């Protein structure tokens, strides 16, 4: 019982259990359909005509497809921790950054191109600057005008996608250039998005480990007033968290758009804000701000992707999948809700009391 309690209080308990559950569903499904029960874990090298020898397997696919969510989850974790609110504009900002980048790369009004109008670096820089601008916009509203985070980000949630459409002249801009497509393709046998995600995670965790930034953000999230009195610039820290969230949304946008070598403003990052928030919640982080656990969020992100892939494998279409995700979100937040916990504690106390009486 004691060890069980210890395991239960482990911060990564919730995401790991969820991940194991998803794997179990996959194994059972594979066994039931008559294929190799362990095919979920198989990783092999395959030769393809388009990109040479590549790693192949369902896990690789999940890690690859989960890159965007994982990248978004990093920024979302910081925002949730610092401001006790979520940034719901990330999906739209992704789309805006991708549209802006492709517009720069292809030139305004061009719908399909194989040659780049400006060097790739400038296009990427544009996307990142756009992400930072969006982050700064959200950050200003939240930190300096003290507007509830969700309402403040609602503005860009609705406007960013529309602005992206405007930048692309209502077209889907295709940039079929190998140097651009490389970001969403393969580096050697490994998919490039995996490498980008790994770099993002390593850099952020190093910064959080080696500097006091992580601690500052947590303390602002726990009590903004107290940390301001203690000498922290709360507003600047919240602002910074939103800037970083915008930056990561931009990176995710670059990856997503490079994967399909186009800027499909209406579909890039659609519903991804939900996945990002879900990963943060699933990672065992309180949506009420304060302490955060980056590793949890990232495992959470890949768990979400595993759930999505599993749902598709089970034959659920992509527009029906939100039902299951919504149910999972509600289950998680209900389990985490203080009144529910208090109710459970009361129940177990009552049971213990009943036992005591009987004895």
């Amino acid at each position, binding site marked *: 019982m004691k060890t069980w309690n210890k395991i239960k209080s482990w911060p990564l308990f919730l995401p790991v259990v969820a991940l194991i559950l998803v794997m179990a569903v996959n194994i059972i499904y594979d066994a039931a359909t008559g294929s190799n029960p362990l095919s979920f874990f198989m990783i092999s090298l395959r030769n393809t005509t388009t990109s040479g020898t590549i790693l192949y397997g369902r896990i690789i696919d999940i890690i690859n497809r989960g890159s965007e969510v994982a990248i978004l989850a990093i920024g979302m974790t910081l925002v949730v921790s610092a401001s006790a609110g979520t940034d719901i504009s990330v999906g739209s900002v992704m789309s805006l950054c991708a549209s802006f980048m492709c517009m720069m790369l292809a030139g305004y009004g061009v719908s399909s191109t194989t040659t780049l109008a400006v060097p790739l670096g400038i296009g990427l820089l544009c996307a990142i600057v756009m992400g930072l601008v969006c982050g700064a916009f959200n950050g200003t509203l939240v930190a300096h005008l003290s507007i*509830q985070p969700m309402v403040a980000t*609602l503005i860009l*949630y609705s406007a960013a996608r529309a602005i992206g459409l*405007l930048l692309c002249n209502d077209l889907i801009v295709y940039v079929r250039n190998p140097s651009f497509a490389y970001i969403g393709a393969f580096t050697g046998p490994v998919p490039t998005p995996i490498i980008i995600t790994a770099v993002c995670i390593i850099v952020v965790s190093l910064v959080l480990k080696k500097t006091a930034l992580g601690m500052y953000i947590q303390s602002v999230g726990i009590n903004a007033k107290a940390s301001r009195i203690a000498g922290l610039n709360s507003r600047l820290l919240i602002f910074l968290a939103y800037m970083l969230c915008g930056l990561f949304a931009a990176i995710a946008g670059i990856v997503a758009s490079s994967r399909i070598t186009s800027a499909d403003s209406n579909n890039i990052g659609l519903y991804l804000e939900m996945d990002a928030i879900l990963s943060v919640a699933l990672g065992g982080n309180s949506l009420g701000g304060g302490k955060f656990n980056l590793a949890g969020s990232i495992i959470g992100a890949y768990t979400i992707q595993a759930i999505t892939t599993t749902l598709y494998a089970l034959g659920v279409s992509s527009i029906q999948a*939100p039902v299951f995700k919504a149910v999972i979100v509600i289950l998680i937040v209900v389990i985490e809700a203080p*009144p529910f916990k208090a109710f459970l504690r009361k129940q177990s106390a009552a049971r213990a009391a009943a036992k005591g009486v009987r004895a």
Partner: protein
Amino acid sequence: MSKKADSKKSINSNTMLLLITIALFIVLYAGGCIAYGSKGFTHFQTFLNILITNAGLICVACGMTCVMLTGGIDISVGALIAMDCMLLAVGMQKGIGAVPMIILVLLIGIVFGIFQGFLVGYLEIQPFIVSMAGMFFCRGMTAVICTDQVSITQEISPTFYAWANAKVIVPFGGYTNNKGKYMAPYVRPGVVVALIVLIAIFLILRYTKFGRSLYAVGGSESSAAMMGLNVKLIKMKAYMLSSFLCSIGGICYCLNTMAGSVSQATGLEMDAISSAVIGGTLLTGGVGNVIGSFFGVLINGTISSIVKTNGKLASSWPNILTAALLFIFIVIQSLFAVLRSRQTGKR
């Protein structure tokens, strides 16, 4: 004494927000009339058309206002409308009558609202998270019901078709067209429903115990609790009311579009929230009324009407303009809040 002066002051700044809104609507509409007068913008019917297109939104905005008065938010409304429309369309296609389907839709709205309200009120989960999950649930459910676009034609349901095409003639403001025929202005039944809802909610908020308790909860939850109000129950009722009104709105919306599809009413929650905010409802709760929200809807409707009449502007402009307006009004609100806190600080 000072208390009285206080409330007077806060009423003043709130009425000012409402006045700004009404003035903005008049300016926008007058601008539209001047710019597109030749395209028929000056006709009374254009104004009525805005009402016809936005009948659903008016109901939704009323519900949204009630929820926002308690300091919460409900972003599931757009998806709930999509689900309602899909249910109506598929149900009638399966041969169920219009009336039972409408009752079913209203019941679903109430149950859905109770569920959301329970999570927000009794389990104290953030309204945004709850209603976002609700939004994805409804959107996904719509796809589960049917992934195709289903239209409601005359063959499927003659009753519903007749309602949708019924004209309620407005006795004034007609004009004679160039063939010398008198064109009587009309509205659709949905508008009548929406206006009844608007007036009912206005009266409820103003004159009933429940309505005033919404303001009390939004103003300060702890003092409302100390006054002996059941805060949890009131919050739950607010969400129930919102989802119920949203279902009524969904029926009005369906009467207008006569179809159900998965991508229907996307972003409607945004329109409803911005209407309420533009109409002077404070996001922090406790201040606002449905008349303001009504004008907010009219402003939104005028913007999209102008963009449509222009014909050359990209379809994403209404979205951007609404977001910009929302931005401006949120900033004004927060500036008011800062000013107010400074004033009380001085005293």
